[in-house]
């Protein structure tokens, strides 16, 4: 009886500790987000979004950095999506488990763990210097594409795996070739999962600083071509905060960043749900 009581006491203590851990995780999240938003939202205004930064960002808005963020993200996604989805299709539908697929999976697993600063270094020597693209949207976008590729591959592969085997059997039994089966019976149903991976890639591209600062430069001028250098919102935020240029502007940019990431997530979820509803 006494032993039992002690066992239940242990259980109670453990339960309390675990609740505390969960609550503090939520609490920290709330602290960070609320702190940045409460200081930053008052700075936000239409002018803040629509004017380009002046005197190093001390005045004006963040327009050119928004353009820079969008441009880099678009390049990264446009390059990484076909590569990533193609790789996932190859792994999921065109090979059996064997040496080739194991080597590819291992390589992708390793790529997923490479720290962003390494992608930055690589992008700098390879795209900026070796391929002579300079600090530009193209260099930055390609380096980001390399960084988000594993994310897109893994989520796409999971999505393909989730499609029942019977769909493949039905498609083949109706005279479909492998490619027809993939494009018509499998991919449309795996779309939501693939889309999730792309959104994760978008968010990572928006957030990334180390890669961008080394490959796309930090110019505040509105870009005119793929070879123009740009500054993204993350880089702008970093420079404002680290060099103490303007705390007010830093908070504003930080708030805009957090809101943008949340916005992308919410819109993605909403579109996704609509897509799923339409097909069900």
């Amino acid at each position, binding site marked *: 009886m006494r032993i039992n009581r002690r066992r239940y006491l242990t259980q109670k203590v453990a339960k309390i500790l675990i609740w505390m851990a969960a609550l503090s995780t939520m609490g920290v999240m709330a602290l960070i987000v609320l702190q940045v938003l409460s200081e930053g939202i008052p700075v936000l205004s239409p002018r803040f979004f629509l004017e380009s930064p002046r005197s190093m960002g001390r005045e004006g808005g963040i327009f050119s950095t928004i353009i820079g963020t969008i441009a880099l993200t678009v390049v990264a996604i446009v390059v990484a999506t076909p590569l990533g989805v193609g790789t996932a299709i190859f792994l999921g539908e065109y090979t*059996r488990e064997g040496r080739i697929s194991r080597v590819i999976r291992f390589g992708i697993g390793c790529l997923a763990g490479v720290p962003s600063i390494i992608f930055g270094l690589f992008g700098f020597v390879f795209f900026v210097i070796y391929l002579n693209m300079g600090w530009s949207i193209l260099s930055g976008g390609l380096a980001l594409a390399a960084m988000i590729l594993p994310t897109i591959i893994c989520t796409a592969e999971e999505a393909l795996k989730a499609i029942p085997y*019977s769909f493949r*059997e039905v*498609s*083949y039994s*109706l005279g*479909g070739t492998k490619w027809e089966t993939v494009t*018509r019976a499998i991919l*449309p149903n795996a779309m939501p999962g693939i889309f999730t991976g792309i959104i994760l890639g978008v968010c990572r591209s928006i957030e990334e600083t180390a890669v961008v600062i080394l490959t796309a430069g930090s110019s505040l001028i509105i870009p005119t071509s793929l070879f123009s250098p740009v500054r993204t919102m993350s880089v702008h935020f970093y420079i404002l905060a680290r060099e103490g240029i303007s705390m007010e502007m830093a908070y504003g940019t930080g708030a805009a960043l957090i809101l943008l990431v949340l916005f992308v997530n919410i819109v993605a979820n909403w579109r996704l749900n609509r897509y799923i509803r339409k097909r069900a």
Partner: protein
Amino acid sequence: MSLRNKVSIKEFSFYYGSIPALKSINLEIRANEIFAIFGPARSGKTTLLKSLNRLTDLTYGTNHNGTIFLEGKDIYDPKVSLTQLRRRVGIVFDLPIPLPMSIYENVAYGPSLGGTTQKKRLDETVEKALRSGVLWEEVKDRLHTSALRLSGGQQQRLCIARILALEPEVLLLDEPCSGLDPISTASIEETLTRLKKEYTIVLVPHNIQQASRVADRAGFFLNGELIEEGTAYQIFTGPKEKQTEDYVTGRFG
């Protein structure tokens, strides 16, 4: 005409790895008949059906001996186009598996792969197939709604119509009524009897009553072997082999 052999299975054996699923099967299936393949579970019925249009190729690590002829042509000839073969020999599975798209798209799936792209011809094909599958009247007003919203029996008739849209020569049905209520079952059986005029049908019935209701001829399978074949009447009323008799009279299975 009706006595001509449509499918000839010659000394056909099939293995999953080293485990035999079919042992030296010899069987002739005639044009425009309903041939029932029956027997207890795991006796090789589904494997034989899937061998007839080489869907077994999708499973890794299988091999076979002997061969199967479709209208005198070896279907295991390396030059055979698998997509063509599967269009000529269509299959309906035990559970209805509509693809998650609209009713129309499900039926149009096969023909559009075959290169029928004209909207008008596709419409005609879909309507004809759905009529043959006795589903047209029920779905003609909601062709573009999801096939997943149909009832189980309707889904299975959709799967039959989906195959019919390809106008195959041979129709393979693997316990097509296993998940269905008696009314849907009756309607599918009726459909089959009507289809026999145009197609050769190989059916794995989901019980002996069904086999005796619809089949012209039947073959009894046990542990991968063909024990006995003959007309349905003979097999179900006076089987020659003891094992067949035991199974038909319900002593095992």
